């Protein structure tokens, strides 16, 4: 029996490409996830990723570049979702539910009803490491630079409008323009993530790093860094595992992210009852039960 070598996958060029792309895409999803989750719009990743599938199929049928068509479709869907949900009468989750699912349904409708539909969209639905090309990698690297610059340079404005959108407007933050730019970037990142994670699984990849990071920190800037790092790590490890198990990369990444989230929940739960604390000058650790935010009762001495 041949000995298993952990580094064996690295001899394949397609795998190295896959890992690099997974790190970039995972990091971007983790970063975007912070603003999406903190604005209470976790479903937008799910919604937009489904919506762009319709755009990809329509573009293919019209012989337009699938990615360009999907980006345009995604941006338009995102703008409509923003407009409808900011109008006040329809909540964001409901707007996302109908607009995005309709987009997805268009894609499925066209595939199922068109005879002789030859293109295989399975990679877009579930992610496939083999479908990542060198050009994909370059485009995703470029998108990553733009995304990280966007959040680095507009950090304070984005923090302000995420925390208190109305006051941010009074203080001169151009919330509509930033929303539009964010929507465009989100649509681009979703398209960039399609081949790695797949549109049906992308929502979890956007949300999971942020909620894991949120359990670990109460500092917004640290949340951004942690979420980005967790996103990059879970995507790259998930990609590696997908090679080992010969499974779909998207499903493996999402399952690994869910596993990391479960581990973080377990860690924070244990940490809550069993962590180092002080009584005056004495620092020690032992099991104790919390009362409120800071007080606790000793359970075991």
């Amino acid at each position, binding site marked *: 029996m041949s000995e298993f070598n952990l580094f064996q996958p690295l001899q394949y060029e397609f795998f190295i490409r896959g890992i690099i792309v997974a790190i970039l895409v995972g990091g971007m999803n983790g970063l975007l996830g912070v603003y999406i989750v903190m604005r209470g719009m976790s479903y937008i990743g799910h919604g937009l990723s489904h919506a762009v599938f319709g755009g990809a199929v329509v573009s293919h049928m019209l012989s337009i570049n699938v990615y360009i068509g999907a980006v345009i479709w995604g941006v338009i869907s995102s703008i409509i979702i923003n407009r409808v949900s900011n109008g006040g009468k329809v909540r964001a989750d409901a707007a996302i539910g109908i607009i995005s699912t309709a987009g997805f349904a268009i894609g499925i409708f066209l595939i199922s009803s068109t005879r002789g539909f030859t293109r295989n969209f399975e990679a877009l639905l579930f992610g496939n490491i083999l479908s990542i090309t060198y050009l994909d990698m370059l485009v995703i690297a470029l998108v990553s630079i733009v995304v990280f610059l966007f959040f680095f340079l507009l*950090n304070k*404005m984005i*923090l302000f409008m995420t*925390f208190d959108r*109305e006051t941010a407007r*009074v203080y001169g933050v151009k919330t509509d323009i930033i929303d539009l730019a964010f929507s465009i970037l989100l649509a681009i990142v979703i398209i960039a993530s399609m081949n790695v994670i797949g549109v049906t699984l992308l929502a979890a990849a956007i949300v999971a790093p942020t909620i894991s990071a949120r359990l670990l920190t109460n500092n917004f800037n640290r949340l951004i860094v942690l979420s980005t790092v967790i996103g990059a790590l879970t995507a790259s490890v998930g990609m590696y595992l997908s090679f080992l198990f010969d499974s779909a990369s998207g499903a493996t990444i999402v399952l690994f992210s869910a596993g990391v989230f479960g581990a973080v929940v377990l860690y924070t739960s244990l940490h809550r009852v069993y962590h180092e604390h002080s009584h005056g000058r004495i620092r020690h650790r032992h099991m104790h039960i919390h009362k409120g935010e800071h007080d606790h009762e000793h359970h075991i001495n």
Partner: protein
Amino acid sequence: MQWWLRFMCRGDDIALRIKGITYGYTSIPVLENINLDVKKGEVIGLLGPNGSGKSTLLRIVAGLIRPWFGSIEFGKRPVIGYMPQVESIDWDFPITVEEVVALGLWNRSGMMPWPSKYVRERVNMVLEDLGMSSNAKRQIRELSGGEQKRVFLARAIVHEPELLLLDEPTTGADPSTRDDILKILNKLNRDGATIILSTHDIVGVAMNLPRVVCINKRILADGDAKDILRGDNLLKVYGLIDSMM
């Protein structure tokens, strides 16, 4: 700048002129033909029950809502400080007191994500003035009701605004915090700030203000607090007798 906020005001002593404002969230107006002149350096209290249109009027002046009719005219577009009702805040948001206050100076902090030296110093100064410097590193959800008010007041004043719009700045605060807030507002006013605040508190706040505007969809009384805070006006404002009588 929104079309309903204009630079047409005549007279140097006018900070802003509210002209014929009518607005509603549904087809029924919550504000109807509101006209109000606010002089520079004035402190005005908007007094009225829940749903009387106080917050809506403040939001229109702040440029957040476009009225159905009417306009707001400024002598010169002032630097505005705005304090929303704290009920609208997500208290689980991972942000500290000093970070919240620094948001008020977001455009004076350079391109880097971290605050500049100027912002740090200014935030520390304002927090010290409000007796909150020891809470600078605390998460906002750990604060008491009174402390929360102070934090959002700190953000409203940190950029030294000329016009302060405060939506119920003392609601939920204990008497000591309320008095501290009024003292701070008094000091800001002496330094030249024009202040419009909304309140429910007749005895603790409105009675201490030089000018009170009683509002309930329309302006029902406007003038010196001691003159207008009489039983008949209050009964009208709080809907206990027909305001049209």
